[in-house]
């Protein structure tokens, strides 16, 4: 039996075996040294066995998780989950959990930072992530259903919801969609997110690494998907306005939150439309520029050999490359790369007459405006629309910008997230929930009227 298990494991070199011969019986102990904690093995298995000759293993070993295993194949699988396998007289198999803690400790969120809110963030550990939510919602109605997805990775997926708030129709839809996923591997939430999203640019499944935001979402009536080995939790359904909300919104005065949210809306428009607007007014509608400013722009642009459209396209692409390299580059050289890319190259490009200073200002303001949003999915959307509007502005001027705006609005309006309108709470207008849209007012309940209405009905 011992050989059988080792063979199943492909004679892997990190599989350790040990045989202990007692007066009445023989024990074979097998464990994976890279997944099991040797101190646990000593403390929970070897020490009790040394001082006790009782053949009844379940009485000797006092570990919390001890199970009897039926066959060698299951035993081999359990080995890779961090279990230590004990074979009694080459007949009976026991599995004792001696999993090594390979996870980092709970730390601060790096992407969704907060000034005054809680600092803990989700980890790659499923149980810790569930615990971080349960810590905030100590309520029997917080339910968790688990499924295993990925034929090869066998990843544990948790569907978390508030039983007394969630819309059952939504819950069934989510469960049905998740169980229908047939991927062979689910390594991170992003794999699942892509499967759950519709095929368009707009993000209709949000993700967060903050347990407080996940808890808020649950109390609204949304569903959180927790994925083992993923530090982010998926939130379903997601509305367009959700991307204008951040964690800090709930830890400061409502008036400040309202101000910041209005600022985010302005930043969203600037991030998408500014390069297109600049190119349209300078190449098609210079009439709208005051004479002094127009002369200043001409003088800045006069030494540049490229057309304005090519110039701004070059700058925008250069910025995207810089941004991508900044993400990939190790932290220790990151700052020098930023200085080299941002300051030296930018300054040199102006001095060399390749780019006009105003173009750098336009691209920089547009880029900085996009950084207001902590969610990468909305930043990607801004990026694509920025190029699209830029092209429309260069082709058709201000008229092109209006076409772009109409396309943007019609696209947002035509999307649903798991059957719910993406433009909620504006279209359809739900006055009750306008209190936490752009304008935030004090409210006692987080419940989302749109999501809970169906349930009440």
């Amino acid at each position, binding site marked *: 039996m011992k050989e059988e298990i080792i063979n199943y494991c492909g004679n892997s070199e990190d599989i350790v075996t040990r045989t202990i011969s007692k007066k009445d019986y023989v024990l074979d102990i097998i464990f994976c040294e890279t997944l099991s904690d040797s101190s646990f093995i000593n403390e929970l298995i070897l020490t009790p066995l040394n001082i006790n000759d009782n053949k009844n293993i379940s009485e000797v070993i006092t570990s919390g998780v001890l199970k009897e295993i039926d066959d060698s194949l299951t035993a081999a699988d359990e080995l890779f989950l961090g279990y230590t396998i004990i074979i009694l007289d080459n007949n009976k198999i026991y599995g004792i959990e001696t999993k090594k803690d390979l996870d980092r400790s709970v730390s601060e969120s790096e992407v969704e930072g907060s000034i005054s809110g809680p600092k803990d963030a989700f980890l790659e550990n499923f149980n810790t992530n569930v615990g971080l939510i349960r810590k905030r919602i100590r309520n029997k109605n917080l339910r968790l259903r688990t499924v295993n997805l990925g034929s090869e990775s066998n990843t544990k997926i948790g569907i978390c919801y508030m039983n007394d708030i969630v819309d059952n129709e939504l819950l069934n839809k989510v469960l049905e969609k998740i169980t229908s996923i047939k991927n062979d591997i689910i390594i991170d939430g992003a794999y699942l997110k892509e499967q759950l999203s519709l095929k368009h640019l707009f993000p209709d499944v949000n993700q967060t690494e903050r347990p407080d935001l996940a808890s808020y979402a649950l109390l609204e009536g949304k569903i959180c998907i927790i994925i083992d080995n993923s530090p982010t939790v998926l939130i379903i359904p997601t509305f367009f306005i959700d991307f204008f909300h951040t964690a800090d919104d709930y830890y400061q005065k409502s008036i400040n939150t309202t101000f910041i949210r209005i600022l985010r809306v302005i930043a969203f428009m600037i991030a998408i439309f500014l390069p297109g607007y600049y190119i349209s007014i300078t190449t*098609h509608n210079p009439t709208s520029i005051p004479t002094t400013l127009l*002369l200043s722009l001409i003088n800045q642009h006069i030494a540049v050999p490229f057309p304005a459209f090519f110039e701004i396209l070059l700058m925008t692409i250069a910025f995207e490359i810089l941004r991508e390299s900044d993400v990939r580059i190790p932290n220790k050289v990151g700052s020098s790369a930023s200085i080299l890319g941002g300051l030296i190259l930018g300054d040199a490009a102006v001095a060399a007459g390749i780019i006009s200073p105003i173009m750098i200002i336009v691209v920089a303001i547009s880029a900085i405006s996009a950084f207001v949003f902590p969610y990468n999915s909305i930043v990607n959307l801004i990026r694509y629309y920025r190029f699209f509007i830029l092209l429309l502005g260069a082709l058709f001027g201000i008229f092109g910008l209006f076409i772009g705006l109409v396309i943007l609005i019609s696209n947002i309006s035509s999307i649903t997230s798991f059957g719910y309108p993406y433009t909620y709470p504006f279209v359809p207008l739900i006055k009750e929930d306008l209190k936490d849209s752009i304008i935030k007012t004090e409210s006692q309940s987080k419940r989302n009227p749109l999501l809970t209405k169906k349930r009440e009905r």
Partner: protein
Amino acid sequence: MKKIIIFIAVFFLLGCSNYYTDINNLAIINEIAIDYDLEYKVYVKVLKNDKESDIFIENGKTLDDCFSSLNNKLTKKLYLAHLDLLVLSDNLDKENYKDIIEFFLSLESSRNTFDTIITNKITEDFLKIDSKEIQNLLDLSINSNGLAKNKSFDSIIKDILNYRLSYIPYIDSENKEVLGLKSIFEENKLLDKDSSITVNFSYNLIDNITLLIDDKSYKLESCSSTNLIDENKITLKVSCNYKGSSKDKEIIKTYLSDAFYKHIKENSNNYFFYLQDKYGKKGHLELLYDLDISLMKESSGDYFI
């Protein structure tokens, strides 16, 4: 279906892409002066930056000829949307005005909101004066002696279309002094100072004015004028605040009455068109002018005229 709509939309919209011009390919024209002596002579001030500009002079049978040759010389697109001032020579006649209006109306980039003045002699030096200085000169004039106010090209076109005449500020190019208004199109004459003041009063352009009567100045404030029409009787009513004695008020009243009657007598046909159009009267209108200038005591020292 969606693809067909997109194709049709793009097909029609592609026409807009022809308007793409980089700003460094624009010649920003700030001032234009037009003179005529057997052929047109056009002075064009092209801005280089805030402080510097170039002045180009072109001759041609038509205005189009002048601007075409300028276009060739500059190798840039002439951009008139930022035109601030149009200076016209006082020797232009009705046909020249027709040409000028036609030319500017046909220009795609011209906004026609620029100020227009007439001067006795167009020189390069005169064009070197900043357009803002000319505008300030006119602002100062209307608020001091009431002779002339800024006049936009748009309002000139409107005047000509409605009344077949327009009054344009006249500036002496040598002394940089506002002389009054010049009536153009049907007639071509420079109005005297009293008539210029009368016209500005009748158009309700004067707010404050200092009248110079027999070497003594009289300051009138918060002036307003209205035209009243009752069947075939037209009344021009002017009211102003004046701080002074009753004797002074009588002098002002007499002076203004004389100026109004003199101007109405000399230019009655113009008022007819103006008021007939304003009050929508059709057919023949018998004109009886009754200038109602009344003197009212508002408080100690303050009076209405």
